[in-house]
């Protein structure tokens, strides 16, 4: 908790905010208090001036009763604490509080101090200098006092009473004291409001910050952390969802990119490892079998040489020698198959490769009166291929076509085009795993010649296998049972029964549960297989968008392939040519195209002919 970035950020910002707000509040309060106090001073000054003026007439008339009356009335006002008029000697002449009348104040008393501080009393003072603010006791309310000097005026010395002589300047002072209770209350309430507001602002700021940090920092960082843990535990197919376009988003994308490349590298390593172990196995088998075969072959052939005049034994021995020779060829074929090397790809014009392949088989085709029709697209981009291996592909396809036509008159058509294909219905799924890592590919159940993906579906009361089409989006799947939208109980791995259902999503078309399969190195595949919905989504491929392919169609007008064997034609050792063929031709083609990230598919009508369609990706870089 205390180590989290969000906590540290919020704490720092809150501390800074408290400091800023406190400083601001102190300054504001100070200014406002000063302003209020100066207004109060002016107000009190005006009040004292008013009192002075209202007593002026009674003073001049020397009507002491009236003066007393005015002062008393004024003193009754709620906020006024004391009103006194002092003469020059400091004697209280009039006061609202009658007990004070006659008292003589010392010149050092707080009311007098401002003028009488120096030896010679001052006669003119500013408002601020005449005002004093004090407390009677430390915990009582504040009091403001104002001294208003009563100056000598012509009317004073000209009056009949002749009390004051002409050369007196100050005749006495009016001392007014008011309590500041209300003002102080006002200031206190403003201060309280400001503190509350500042507190609320800080809390609000912290809350908004927390929300923003949660959204922009915490959650993305958490996702990144989960991803690094997943990758650390070996799951290289983990993909961080899109985190936007900020730095963390970019980090996530480059992280995804990195793991994808790692996964590809691992996949390649795995593939080459597989090929290497297959090669080692074949080499071991070849060596081990070839030794005993040598024993049989030498002795048998040696015996054969010496039994030429014993036809019966001779014939039997011939069988032994012939069959041993056949075993020898099989082992050799196995070695050749295992040795299929990594393609040496270079940028090549595909038409050149096809033309070279045609040169190789030309004589044979002419001898059999087979016409070749070339329909080449103008200006095809060059493709990154191994020209020798691709030449092999075309030679094999053309000679297969030639065998299919046989001795009849026929035609072989080779057509090239540039096509832009959506990955939907194009890309082959070559590997699929359950969450526990079991391989789901099924070599026996093939769909259009390709190994299918086998999963088990459990309905209420029954269960059965579903064989998914390995071509993404084509959906030629086969199901042992009928599956309705709402009766799917679970979809599981046939090996470990772990659920394959994606718990976070249902089919966007029919809302049935969808399966989620791991495609090693290539993200995840989602899909639905109810009777009337065939939705599939493969994030990895969809993100790549449509790609350019060179499409090569090799068609013949031959005998066609019976539908019951069309699934098997790419299998190694499957042949219709009997002793004539090894059954490796199309398997080798298959392997070559796989090494080129290309595909091959077949369409055939019995008696009408066969078309092989090859798609080779055009590299954009």
């Amino acid at each position, binding site marked *: 908790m205390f180590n989290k970035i969000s906590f540290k950020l919020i704490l720092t910002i809150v501390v800074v905010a408290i400091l800023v707000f406190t400083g601001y509040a102190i300054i504001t309060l100070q200014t406002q208090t000063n302003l209020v106090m100066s207004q109060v001073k002016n107000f009190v000054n005006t009040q004292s001036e008013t009192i002075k003026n209202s007593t002026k007439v009674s003073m001049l008339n020397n009507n002491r009763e009236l003066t007393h009356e005015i002062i008393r009335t004024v003193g009754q006002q709620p906020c006024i604490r004391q009103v006194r008029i002092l003469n020059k000697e400091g004697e209280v002449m009039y006061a609202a509080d009658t007990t004070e009348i006659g008292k003589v104040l010392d010149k050092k008393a707080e009311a007098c101090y401002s003028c009488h501080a120096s030896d010679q009393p001052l006669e003119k003072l500013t408002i601020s200098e005449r005002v004093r603010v004090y407390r009677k006791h430390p915990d009582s309310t504040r009091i403001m006092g104002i001294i208003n000097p009563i100056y000598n005026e012509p009317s004073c010395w000209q009056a009949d009473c002749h009390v004051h002589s002409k050369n007196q300047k100050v005749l006495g002072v009016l001392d007014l004291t008011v309590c500041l209770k209300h003002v102080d209350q006002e200031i206190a309430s403003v201060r309280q409001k400001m503190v509350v507001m500042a507190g609320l602002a800080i809390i609000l700021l912290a809350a908004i910050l927390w929300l923003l940090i949660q959204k922009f920092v915490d959650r993305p960082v958490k996702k990144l952390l989960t991803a690094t843990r997943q990758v650390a535990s070996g799951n290289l197919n983990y993909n961080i969802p899109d985190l936007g376009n900020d730095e963390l988003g970019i980090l996530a994308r480059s992280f995804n990119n990195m793991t994808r490349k790692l996964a590809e590298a691992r996949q390649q390593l795995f593939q080459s490892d597989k090929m290497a172990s297959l090669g080692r196995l074949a080499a071991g088998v070849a060596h081990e079998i070839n030794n005993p075969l040598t*024993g049989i*072959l*030498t002795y048998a052939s040696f015996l054969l*040489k010496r039994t030429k005049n014993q036809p019966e034994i001779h014939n039997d021995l011939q069988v032994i020698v012939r069959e041993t020779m056949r075993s020898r060829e099989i082992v050799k074929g196995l070695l050749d198959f295992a040795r299929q090397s990594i393609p040496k790809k270079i940028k090549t014009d595909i038409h050149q490769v096809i033309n070279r392949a045609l*040169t190789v*088989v030309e004589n044979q085709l002419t001898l059999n009166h087979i016409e070749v029709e070339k329909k080449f697209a103008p200006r095809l981009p060059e493709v990154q291929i191994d020209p020798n291996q691709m030449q092999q592909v075309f030679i094999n396809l053309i000679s297969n076509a030639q065998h299919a036509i046989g001795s009849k008159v026929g035609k072989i058509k080779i057509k090239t085009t540039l096509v832009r294909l959506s990955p939907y219905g194009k890309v082959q799924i070559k590997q699929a795993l359950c969450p526990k890592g079991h391989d789901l590919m099924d070599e026996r159940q093939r769909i259009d010649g390709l190994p299918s993906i086998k999963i088990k579906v459990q309905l209420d009361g029954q269960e059965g296998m579903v064989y998914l089409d390995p071509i993404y989006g084509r959906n030629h799947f086969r199901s042992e049972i009928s599956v309705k939208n709402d009766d799917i109980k679970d979809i599981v791995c046939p090996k470990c029964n772990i659920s394959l259902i994606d718990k976070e999503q249902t089919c966007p078309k029919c809302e049935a549960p969808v399966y989620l399969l791991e495609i090693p190195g290539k993200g995840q595949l989602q899909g639905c297989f109810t009777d009337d919905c065939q939705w599939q989504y493969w994030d990895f491929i969809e993100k790549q968008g449509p790609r350019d392919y060179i499409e090569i169609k090799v068609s013949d007008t031959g005998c066609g392939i019976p539908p019951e064997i069309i699934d098997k034609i790419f299998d190694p050792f499957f042949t219709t040519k009997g002793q004539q063929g090894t059954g490796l031709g199309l398997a080798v083609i298959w392997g070559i195209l796989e090494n080129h990230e290309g595909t091959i598919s077949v369409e055939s009508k019995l008696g009408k002919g066969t078309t092989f369609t090859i798609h080779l990706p055009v590299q954009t870089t």
Partner: protein
Amino acid sequence: MSKEDKHLLAIDDEQVILDAVKRVAGSEGWQVSTAADAHQGLDLALKNKYDLCLCDIKLPDMDGFEFLEHLNRTNSPLPVIMTTGYATVENAVKSLDLGAIDYLPKPFTADELLSALYRGFRYVQIQQQQQSKPDPNSLIVPCPSQYKKLGYASWCFMDLDGSVKIGLSFLFLKIIGVIKKINLLPMESEINQGFSCAEVEAKNGLVHPVVSPLSGQIIQRNENLIENPEILEKDPYFEGWLYVIVPHNLNYEINHLTFCCQ
């Protein structure tokens, strides 16, 4: 050839093969000594004088290639025929590179073994003849300078159009003697570097495989040879070509070839 003079050293870790070689070669007058591993074989080869050695590649401890290297270091003149159950181009080429005179993939028939031994023996004979007393009357047809070869048996010539012509060397023809018949592979067949691409039947009844110098596909064959195999002996480097092929992997395989005239 005199029956008593021929001594063969056979090295193989499989007893059945040693027995078979003893039995088959013995029937043609070879005296066969055997060794179950390369150390023992090397001891024997250095101690005694043999005319020919037949050695397996995959042997325990020291393999056939190391055996060849040891032999080369001691300047032993013993000609060696390599044999292996794991017949690959690499093995064949490496054997020839290291100075083996022939390469016999297992499993072999009695005839294949005998023809290989015969060629080996003739090879030694011809070498000895040339070194000791060159016969001024014997005609040596030299190999054109731009031709290349793999081992001593076959040559190839790369044409400007990318096709390659393949044929038999004069030495090979001299070794196998008068030719009765030649068996060529059918058109469009695939041939592989280091492996047999044709069979030559000699008058003495032995059938000799022709090692192909390159891999590729046959696009033309010399039909004249089937009718008149003697063309081969008359003009082995021009009229006596065997095939024209489209090579599969020329850039790589060319590294295994040497100049024919060397």
